[in-house]
């Protein structure tokens, strides 16, 4: 007897959880329908049940018998009569029967639970798969993009090829594979492939560097090229140092008065006293020609006359040897002159394009007239 009770308790403990969970899920449904029936039955024939049995067995019975209405009364009655000893066997049988159904119910609930879980899992896996597929697609796309970049680099095509390449992603890994494989004939695992691609990238960029760095064309070998590059970068950095030092030495103020500079620049570019190079005033003519082509015939002669005094004083102050302005178009140094004027013109270009786009045309002629005025004043003096 006690054993049976214990067994029942065990059964109850076993089945309570799924059933209660089942209840938990369908609670409102059951309470709305079964409680009413239960109450009716209880009012009609049943006595109140002892203890904890009531809670679960009644509910279990109601649940179990909900589907098949014929067993409803039995199922409801028997658990409630559990407390009375003579009926126990029958009750046990019924409980067993109920248990079977409970099993079914529990199984079904569990099954549904499992199914839902499986569904969830499946969903998750599906989503994972989807993500993975997307990732793989992205990878493919990346590969394609790399391919495209390579192709565009190699052929220097326009971007229209990339769009076409993206449409057919399956086509492009192939040539890469063949291309890589054709080189060595071995080591086709992913690591060495990746390494090879990396090396190719590096060498490609090294080629660009080779084009960029002067004197790097003849050198083969990575170490030598790196040497050249290092030297070049160092020289550039030193140049920056030197130039900033020079600038600091030249002007005592920090701000460079660009307008002033440009005025002087053009003024001196035209006259080109050239203290840096030490070339005499024969720069006058080409410079003037370059800047002021219109009034050639008249201006040239006059400006020569104007320039010479200032130029001479300039040169005297710099203690450069005074050269005679007779050597006008005797031009072995014409290249230098043009270089110089080009420099001036470019600086002026840069600044004027940046600041005063409209002014730049009048800007050139303005200092010239000023300069002419100065020259005339000097001449008069």
């Amino acid at each position, binding site marked *: 007897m006690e054993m049976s009770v214990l067994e029942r308790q065990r059964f109850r403990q076993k089945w309570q959880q799924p059933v209660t969970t089942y209840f938990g899920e369908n609670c409102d449904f059951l309470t709305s329908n079964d409680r009413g029936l239960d109450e009716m039955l209880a009012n009609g024939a049943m006595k109140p049940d002892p203890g904890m049995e009531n809670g679960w067995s009644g509910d279990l019975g109601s649940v179990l018998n909900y589907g098949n209405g014929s067993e409803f009364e039995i199922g409801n009655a028997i658990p409630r009569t559990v407390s009375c000893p003579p009926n126990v066997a029958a009750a046990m049988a019924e409980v067993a029967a109920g248990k079977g159904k409970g099993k079914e119910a529990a199984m079904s609930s569990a099954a549904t639970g499992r199914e839902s879980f499986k569904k969830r899992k499946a969903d998750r896996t599906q989503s994972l798969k989807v993500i993975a597929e997307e990732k793989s697609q992205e990878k493919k796309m990346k590969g394609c993009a790399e391919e495209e970049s390579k192709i565009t680099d190699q052929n220097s095509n326009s971007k229209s090829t990339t769009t076409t390449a993206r449409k057919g992603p399956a086509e492009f890994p192939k040539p890469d594979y063949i291309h890589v494989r054709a080189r060595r004939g071995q080591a086709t695992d992913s690591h060495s492939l990746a390494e090879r691609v*990396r090396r190719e*990238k*590096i060498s490609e*960029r*090294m080629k*660009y*560097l080779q084009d*960029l760095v002067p004197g790097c064309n003849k050198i083969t*070998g*990575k*170490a030598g090229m*790196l*040497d050249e*590059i*290092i030297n*070049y*970068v*160092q020289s*550039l*950095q030193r*140049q*920056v*140092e030197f*130039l*900033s*030092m*020079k*600038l*600091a*030495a*030249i*002007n*005592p*103020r*920090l*701000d*460079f008065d660009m307008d*002033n*500079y440009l005025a*002087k*620049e053009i003024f*001196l*570019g035209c006259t080109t*006293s050239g*203290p*840096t190079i030490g070339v005499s005033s024969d720069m006058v003519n080409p410079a003037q020609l370059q800047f002021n082509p219109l009034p050639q015939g008249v201006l040239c002669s006059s400006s020569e006359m104007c320039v010479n005094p*200032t130029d001479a*004083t*300039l040169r005297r*102050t*710099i203690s450069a040897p005074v050269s005679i302005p007779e050597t006008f178009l005797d031009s072995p140094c014409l290249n230098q002159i043009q270089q*110089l004027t080009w*420099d*001036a013109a470019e*600086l002026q*270009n*840069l*600044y004027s*394009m*940046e600041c005063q786009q409209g002014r730049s045309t009048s800007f050139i002629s303005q200092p010239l007239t000023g300069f002419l005025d100065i020259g005339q004043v000097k001449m008069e003096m």
Partner: protein
Amino acid sequence: MKSRMQNSSTLLKQDFLKKWIKGLQIYTNFKKAKTMSIFERKKAIKLSADVAMASTRNPMTRWSRAVMANVPTDDDNASKILVEQLSGRKIEKKALITCSRKILRRSRIKARRVVRKSTVKASSIAKKLVKNRTRVLKRLVPGGEEMDEICLIKETLDYILSLRVQVDVMRHLALAAERLDPSERVL
């Protein structure tokens, strides 16, 4: 093709010149330039030129960011203002950067030691040479110590190009200043 390249380079030069002059103006506003010694002036000029160059290339490259980060902001306020104004961002995470850099350096030293031990038997001298030179190059390019090889070469390309532009503009300016100077003495 060539004209386009020239056009882009002139654009770069213009941008650089604009920013540089702006930076120099910041310096002049901040300090009395007359009181500065020639070395201070040189430092200011170089720094402003570097920062200007970096800020013209700022969003794209790593070396420029490294230049920005490496500006010595402790000694004077002007450089800080300079960087902030030119690049349009604040300097705050300096301490963090130095800390992480310290750790990185330490780890790299360790790694190098390990490599040395393992490459005793390495037969290829060329590889070693390349490695040494890469290390030197990494030291030359700002921020190069944190880069891998592909990135390093890319950044070196960009750095060389922008250094060229910088040198070009500075030379022009130096020439202009040089020509201005004697004429000022005359007049």
